[in-house]
């Protein structure tokens, strides 16, 4: 008997019989879609077997549905004597599967009509390349309790960091059976987080997964389903924490994992490297002033003091030799502006808890800047300050390059002067992420003065923008994307951290992008070398961008960027082609938001009832 191409495996425990029947029917419907002659369990090359394992169901009607399904020669029903949990049942199903690929399907979910023919086409297209597919996932939507489809989840291409933070993949997952067997199938004791555990172990074993940006599965929302709310399965959160911790340990990442504040999300607290890293702040400034929250400030002073207050390190110098300003970082800013300075950062123990990194402050000061600014910076930063006079015409990229060349840290933090650190341990968080050798750059969460989001990672979706610009600063975002560390195609240089070797390897910023898009070009060159770029919500700054003046976009810069990166700017792999182009807010393209297509049925009613 020839092995089928696909084995759909389903653990069954007390589903609504109607939902189980729909799931089984959706598998049978895969056979023959767009194919020629009859084959095993299907037509042409799309051969499908369905392995159902009844995990001791007692609900009336379930047995009858399974008995009926068993009459199909390509459906295998295994009956367990007693309920053993989803891991045991799923492993029993895997043991009976014979297909080249295993398709994971819950007992009440529904495969899209052409799901497996689509998967087969994608797998076939890759088979001829040097990069055959081992694991594949698709987008999905939800089936509401009233039976309508809604809430499509359009996912990014493979995002390892995001997968560590939460199972953003969920459904549909198709994996080469040998790959699943090689990692040992489902892990006992992970019930409720077994899929996340399996995905993490597959990621370790076979590397990046392939993403098919089509809705190939409809995930049913039922009262007890995770699709309705992760809070329905609280014990799953603790198991998810454990499987993530185990994955990080296997991956050689020293970290503590906690249950996150959002359902289904974990908080990873990575250890810092030894010896204690020195982070060089690279801050270009002309001593600009502004009035966020009504009181005048010299931006760079508050940018520096907000960081040094959270990183006491070596004690600041007591007094300036000139004696015109006294020590104490915030007070210095106040005296210079003759105003009230800055309100305290939202410190969770700022200053009384060592962040674990040392700070060097490298400031590139424009010619003509008020000399009091440099004097005040010396008072604030003491011997941690390196001043680089800059007397050339304004060129942001060049200033950054000059600053990095003058710095001595193992890590560089590119920082705009109109910022103020919010999270005292933010820089340490970024350093810990950047310590992964395949991570090239780490970006931060930036908020406007009113607390709305300024930067949630770049999006190159027929334009260059910041993800979820203007949304509430504490919003988790669609599909938790603002609540988790995740890969991006780029991050703003207003607050971006790199290992020095990465900066040197890509040759620094391109000075041809004097004002605009230097960070976009820089990000894409980092990706091109093969590094990942990670955005984290756990390092955040205020960015008083409105106060720093308008920077009109230079048409030459736009054309240069388009010429160099046109394709990348239209195909952001961490966005999704089903999202509306030219937007940064995860709005679906017209017609893809989930409403069922309007159809006139045979009896004259419409599909919308």
């Amino acid at each position, binding site marked *: 008997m020839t092995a089928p191409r696909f084995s759909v495996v389903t653990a069954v425990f007390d589903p609504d019989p109607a939902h189980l029947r729909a799931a089984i029917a959706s598998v049978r419907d895969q056979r023959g879609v767009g194919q020629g002659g009859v084959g095993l369990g299907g037509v042409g090359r799309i051969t499908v077997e369905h392995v159902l394992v009844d995990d001791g169901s007692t609900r009336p009607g379930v047995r009858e549905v399974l008995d009926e399904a068993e009459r199909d020669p390509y459906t295998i029903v295994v009956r367990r004597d007693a309920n053993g949990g989803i891991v045991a049942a799923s492993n029993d199903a895997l043991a009976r599967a014979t297909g080249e690929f295993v398709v994971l399907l819950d007992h009440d979910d529904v495969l899209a009509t052409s799901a497996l023919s689509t998967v087969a086409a994608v797998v076939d297209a890759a088979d001829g390349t040097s990069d055959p597919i081992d694991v594949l996932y698709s987008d999905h939507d939800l089936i509401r309790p009233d039976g309508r489809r809604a809430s499509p989840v359009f996912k990014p291409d493979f995002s390892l960091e995001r997968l560590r933070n939460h199972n953003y993949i969920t459904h549909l997952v198709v994996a080469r059976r040998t790959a699943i067997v090689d990692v040992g199938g489902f892990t006992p004791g992970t019930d409720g987080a077994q899929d996340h555990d399996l995905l993490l172990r597959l990621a370790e074993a076979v590397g990046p997964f392939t993403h098919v940006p089509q809705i190939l599965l409809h995930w049913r929302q039922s009262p007890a389903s995770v699709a309705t709310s992760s809070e329905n399965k609280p014990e799953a959160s603790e198991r998810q924490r454990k499987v993530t911790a185990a994955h990080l340990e296997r991956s050689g990442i020293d970290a503590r994992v906690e249950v996150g504040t959002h359902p289904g999300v974990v908080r990873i607290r990575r250890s810092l490297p030894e010896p204690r890293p020195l982070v060089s702040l690279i801050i270009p400034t002309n001593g600009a002033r502004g009035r966020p929250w009504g009181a005048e400030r010299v931006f760079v002073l508050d940018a520096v003091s907000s960081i040094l207050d959270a990183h006491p390190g070596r004690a600041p110098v007591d007094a300036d030799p000139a004696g015109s300003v006294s020590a104490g970082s915030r007070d210095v800013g*106040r005296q210079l502006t003759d*105003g*009230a300075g800055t309100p305290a950062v939202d410190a969770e123990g700022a200053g009384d808890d060592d962040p674990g990194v040392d700070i060097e402050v490298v400031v590139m000061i424009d010619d003509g800047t008020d000399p009091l600014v440099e004097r005040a910076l010396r008072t604030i930063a003491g011997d941690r300050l390196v001043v680089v006079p800059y007397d050339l015409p304004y060129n942001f990229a060049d200033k950054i390059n000059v600053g990095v060349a003058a710095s001595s840290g193992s890590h560089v933090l590119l920082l705009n002067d109109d910022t103020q650190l919010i999270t005292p341990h933010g820089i340490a968080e970024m350093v810990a992420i950047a310590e992964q050798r395949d991570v090239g750059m780490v970006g931060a969460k930036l908020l406007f003065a009113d607390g*709305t989001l300024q930067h949630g990672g770049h999006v190159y979706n027929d334009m260059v923008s910041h993800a979820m610009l203007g949304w509430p600063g504490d919003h988790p975002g669609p599909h938790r994307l603002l609540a988790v560390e995740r890969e991006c195609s780029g991050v703003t240089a207003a607050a971006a951290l790199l290992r020095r070797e990465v900066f040197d390897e890509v040759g620094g910023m391109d000075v041809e992008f004097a004002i605009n898009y230097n960070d976009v070009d820089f990000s894409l060159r980092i990706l091109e070398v093969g590094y990942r770029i990670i955005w984290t919500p756990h390092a955040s700054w205020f960015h008083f961008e409105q106060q720093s003046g308008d920077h009109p976009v230079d048409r030459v810069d736009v054309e240069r960027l388009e010429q160099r990166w046109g394709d990348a700017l239209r195909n952001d792999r961490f966005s999704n*082609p089903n999202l509306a182009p030219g937007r940064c807010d995860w*709005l679906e*393209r017209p017609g893809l938001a989930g409403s069922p297509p309007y159809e006139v049925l045979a009896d004259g009613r419409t599909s919308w009832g």
Partner: protein
Amino acid sequence: MSEVVQSLSDEVERLRRLVGPSERGFADLQADVTAAEKHARQADAAAGELRGRLAEMSVDLSRARQEQDIAMRRVDMSPSERWADRANRRWSASVRPRVQRLARRS
């Protein structure tokens, strides 16, 4: 003389009214400014919360308008036009980007 004194006294009173209760020292004035900034920040945050919600709701509104628009167009379509419309959307949203991606990969 008394007129001069009276005039100066009036001026002092006027200035006191302008300065308010903190005329006694710079520290008090600074405390006032700090308190004012705190209130300004709270007001800004409150406005930001509303702006953020507006941004979120504007996406929902755009989504609803898109859906309404496409539904109205579909009502007027013949079955073949509906089929062509669906195929076109699938082509532009899913097939073409994937083909481009595979082409880039190879």
